[in-house]
């Protein structure tokens, strides 16, 4: 027998929750899947495997991978510096790490484009070195990097804060050098959190739209991301193609969601054990 429920409001709160989720979340996603499914397998496959679509997957995935790699290193360094060192401006740095989440993506997009265009503050000196950033895949990478900076920092930071100093001290006093201690003692302890943060960062980069489209150049086959291709198909009133391509992004998102949940479950077990 179920224990008698003491608290009131189950029916009201659960009802509101299910109604809201049905109308706001499930209905539109179901409609998208329905629209994509109504294409039939052959037409669907023709759209999602068309050369332009495949090129857009390649651009999106490669740029997201590169951005995630940058964030892995930068994020770890940021989390390390914020938790380990005391210096003027540390707390300000800690606060502004979240700026990429707080700043609307369109604002980030025009700011990065202006900054990295051939006559921008950073774009001009880079252009002198022969490096073009805006309107190239490098620009897409920069935008993706910006919008996902906080993920690795914020997943690694709590683990670094809880790291027992005695572990490092033991390794160092037993004769391991600093590099070796970091590599074989500290890094394995951070690995689950690093992995979880990295996968969140990658997932976000795959779906990023606002920040990317301003800086990307948006040339089919070279600087066109998959989200933009969906948008273009909608503007051409080719709704079936838009549904098919959007369903691919949706599928990728669900795969990434499963991966990150798995990694986070492992990370939190690690956190509990440490």
């Amino acid at each position, binding site marked *: 027998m179920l224990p008698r429920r003491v608290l009131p409001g*189950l029916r009201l709160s659960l009802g509101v929750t299910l109604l809201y989720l049905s109308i706001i979340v499930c209905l539109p996603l179901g409609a998208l899947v329905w629209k994509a499914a109504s294409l039939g397998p052959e037409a669907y496959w023709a759209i999602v495997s068309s050369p332009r679509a495949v090129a857009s997957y390649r651009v999106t995935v490669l740029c997201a991978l590169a951005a995630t790699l940058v964030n892995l290193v930068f994020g770890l360094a940021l989390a390390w510096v914020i938790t380990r060192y005391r210096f003027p401006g540390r707390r300000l740095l800690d606060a502004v790490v979240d700026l990429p989440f707080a700043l609307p993506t369109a604002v980030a997009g025009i700011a990065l484009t202006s900054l990295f265009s051939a006559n921008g503050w950073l774009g001009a000196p880079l252009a002198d070195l022969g490096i073009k950033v805006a309107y190239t895949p490098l620009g897409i990478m920069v935008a993706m990097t910006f919008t996902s900076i906080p993920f690795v920092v914020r997943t690694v930071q709590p683990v670094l804060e809880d790291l027992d100093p005695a572990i490092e001290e033991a390794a160092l006093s037993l004769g391991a050098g600093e590099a070796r201690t970091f590599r074989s003692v500290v890094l394995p302890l951070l690995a689950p959190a690093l992995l979880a943060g990295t996968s969140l960062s990658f997932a976000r980069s795959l779906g990023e739209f606002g920040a990317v489209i301003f800086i990307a150049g948006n040339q089919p086959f070279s600087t066109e991301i998959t989200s933009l291709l969906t948008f273009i198909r909608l503007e051409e009133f080719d709704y079936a193609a838009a549904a098919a391509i959007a369903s691919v992004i949706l599928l990728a998102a669900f795969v990434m969601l499963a991966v990150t949940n798995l990694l986070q479950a492992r990370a939190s077990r690690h956190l509990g054990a440490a």
Partner: protein
Amino acid sequence: MNRRAPVRVGEKPLARRLLIGFVLALSAVFILAPLAVIFGQAFSMGLGYFASTIAAPDTRHAILLTVLTALIAVPINTGFGIAAAWAVTKFDFPGRRLLVVLIEIPFSISPIVAGTAYLFVYGLQGLFGPALQDADIRILFALPGIVLASMFVTAPFVARELIPLMEAQGRSEEEAAVSLGANGWQVFRRVTLPNVKWALLYGVVLCNARVMGEFGAVSIVSGNIRGQTNTLPLQIELLYNDYNTVGAFAAASILTLLALVTLAVKVLLEARGAGRRSRPAAAQAPGVAAPRPEGLVP
């Protein structure tokens, strides 16, 4: 004096300086420089010009539409967040964990997918489009569509702040209140709300920032009708594509200011215990909500 060897990795002055230098240099490029560009460009033609672009009718309308959208979407979302957190943390029922996953799903979905999905519900080629047109009800390319898309992308914001906290606080205080004769509303207002008020405010502030800044999903459902369905982020795109750079950055500077205020409020609320970072790891309910980086996740 005998100097002790470093007891932790990376405590040597050289390593410290190099790492701090590396991080500050990259932060200057990726975080400080974009901020500086926004305000630099916005005021590049002087304060008077800045004021005149902000006061331009289309931009003014976009600001009003953005505020109106937030005024509708944020309270509804807050109500949903409270209801969801109450249902999930105060009762046991089959499918509870699945419900928590479902609540967080919009975070994983690209705004473009969200916008496209809404077209297939309310658009002419969608489920209800033809019926809505016959009844002469406009959802897409009008305020309702913008509000709905904003609610989708921000659905988890309030719930995800409340659920771990209410889970950690348990049910005993509420149960005591009920046994002393309080009704549901009294329990919520006198017992639960005081315990979660900072976390609630935290979620509301982050939700508001995202609603006002949402671009991708809204750009699909709004139809970008100048002076009618352009929210502030869409107006920024329009001005930018019109080569009105100063106007675009002037409009962008308003949203940037909102972002900075949001960050400041966030820091203040974290000092009062809201947000995940200040919570001990053990307080995170095992199996209910995996730890996520706090803040404005997508």
